[in-house]
């Protein structure tokens, strides 16, 4: 698929789903965090859907949405401390999800059925350059949001710890002693 065709479908898809664009309230971000996360509204929706697929919500077990994994990634992408090469890698993976969706089903990822989404991500894992590494990193970031101290904005009300019966250590970090303030 050439780039022009891709852009055309992308913008059509974005327009079609504009009404459901997820709102993305920012964290109360510390001062050193600034700039642009570098993803379009449509790409945020793709990423949201990927995270939901990788770690779905269930009645008895929190999923990516419940632990604010999307916001976690937003923080990583806005963090001046995050290596620029790593940020590019994270963004490129989001783009690759939709490229693969278009290649296999001629639709954006968010327009796909569950089994098609699974096929797209498996295709990335098995066949795409850096696909597996990107998926691993997405799952790892979901785990950070699931199991890090709630003071960082994920793991709300310790939902991840409670689910897995994990006993955290003490003393736990207060807000003013988060690692980037030390």
């Amino acid at each position: 698929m050439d780039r022009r065709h891709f852009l055309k479908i992308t913008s059509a898809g974005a327009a079609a789903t504009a009404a459901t664009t997820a709102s993305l309230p920012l964290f109360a971000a510390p001062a050193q965090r600034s700039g642009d996360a570098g993803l379009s509204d449509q790409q945020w929706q793709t990423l949201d859907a990927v995270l939901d697929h990788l770690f779905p919500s269930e009645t008895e077990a929190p999923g990516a949405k419940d632990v604010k994994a999307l916001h976690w990634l937003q923080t990583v992408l806005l963090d001046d401390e995050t290596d620029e090469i790593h940020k590019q890698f994270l963004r490129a993976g989001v783009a690759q999800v939709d490229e693969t969706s278009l290649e296999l089903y001629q639709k954006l990822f968010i327009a796909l059925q569950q089994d098609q989404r699974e096929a797209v991500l498996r295709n990335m894992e098995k066949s795409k350059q850096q696909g597996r590494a990107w998926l691993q990193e997405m799952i790892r970031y979901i785990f950070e949001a699931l199991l890090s101290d709630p003071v960082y904005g994920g793991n709300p009300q310790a939902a991840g710890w409670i689910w897995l019966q994990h006993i955290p250590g003490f003393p736990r970090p207060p807000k003013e002693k988060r690692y980037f303030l030390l």
Partner: protein
Amino acid sequence: MSHDFDVCVIGSGAGGGPVAYALAEAGYSVVVLEKGPWFTEEDYYKDELACCIRNAYTPDLKEQSHVVETELDEGGWRRRETAQDTSWNLWNGNVVGGSSNFMSGFFHRLKPVDFKQLSTFGPIEGANVVDWPISYDDLEPYYTKVEHVVGVSGRVVDHPHQEPRSTPDFPYPPTAEHPVSGLIDQACDKLGVHSVPMPRAILSKPDLGRQSCSYNGYCGSYGCATGAKGSSRAALLNHAVAGGRCKILPDSHVIRLQSDSSGQITAVEYRDKNDVVKHIDAALYVVACQAVETSRLLLNSTGEKHPHGLANNSGQVGKNLLFAGGGAGSGRLRYADFPAEKRDEMRQIGPFINRSIYDYYVIDDADFGEKQKGGTIDFVHLHPNPVSRATRQMRGSDGLLWGKPLKRRLEQHFRESSYIKIEAFCDWLPVDDCFVSLDSKVRDKWDMPVAKARLGFHVRNLQVGWYLASKGAEVLKAMGAENVVSFASGSPPLNLMAGGCRFGDDPETSVLNADCRAHDVDNLYITDGSFMPSAGSAPFTWTIYANAFRVADKIIERLGGNKFQSLSS
């Protein structure tokens, strides 16, 4: 001749702390330069992001990195720059107190045989095995001193490999034990091996101006929030500073040691926290930056008499770099296999396992070959870090796990079982292909060459590591553990490094003399693990502490003795 200080110590970890403590206590003025910040108990929290994921206690690898070279199966060396390949991070804790803040405090003395390996077992082809220039008896009083000053808890039991002691038992009783300890004891009884309580550098009761352990289960890799862990900072530097004769300069990165036409050090050049270049001079200088950085600092410190780096006129600086060799393994104990009333006990996190086996410290097993040095087997809990544990669960048999199957696996892993780890330690034999040099391309943010570590290893490390790990696995199986695995690897544990400036009697083959003074720089001592010509078969922090106290006594003697004792006598 007047100096800014009597002694200037570079590096504040397990090698620098005892020198600062002992010299200040003896009445001498000491300055300690530490490149990292000065955190206290008020800054250490059980925060996995801080310690272990975002690496808040080590330099930014984009600014200060290393180069490592690992051996390729087909021959040759694979070069990795750690700024890009961050999994090979050689920094271990650049804060006041160094990496001793983040140790687990598994404390083992070396045994008499470690001091005379060459004369006991003979040479090993491809390894630079030597006897030490001192004996166990020379170091024993200082192991005992560490028990009392740093605070070591434990319990002496009778077993065939117990090293000689000048005191009957530890000054502090063992830390609280997990029910798994009893299961290991029973399994070892069944197998006819000796399960020995492992000493810990952790206070089991409040003393020495510090609190007792709080048993929260997050010890290794984390800074201690109570002061119970015997870090160089909590146990030594805090006291040294309180005495008024020790000054610590945090955020002070030493660039080079300057030397004059006689070859002596004249000043330390460092950058302070505002990046301003400053100098300090002292009568004597002590370097203790941890093995890789100690060698790098010397190699970067060229001078008229030291064209190839300070104390390097025989080309020995950086050679015979050591790590802890060994193997590892694990097994799973399912809570459901225990009676209902025992399950809550098994689920506890906090109390320690603290069990070691020394029966194979010397391996005398015809099936394994000639009688030879073996090592120590430790049993510990799987580290509780939840993100790291979860991350290891995503690998399935046919690709990555995600979705509900991944969630079910996490539930099983976290909720249903306790995991016991085997950590087996053997000698990392000194070899020509394990050394530190200066990299010709990569420089740090101050434009100084970074250290390059070539990480070759001797195949004997693997053989002994496998042997020990499989002996540990037998114990786990005898306990009824499931999924028992054991293995060894040639990859070094980057947090356990030594060597590079070995001590010895011959200036042609060693950097330091028996007092850990440089052969060709009269006012330079090195007191971190760099001095070790062989690594022993256990984690070596206790040995670094003990030797640094020993060298401190040599320095005090050289400066004229303890000022307070001479006043009173």
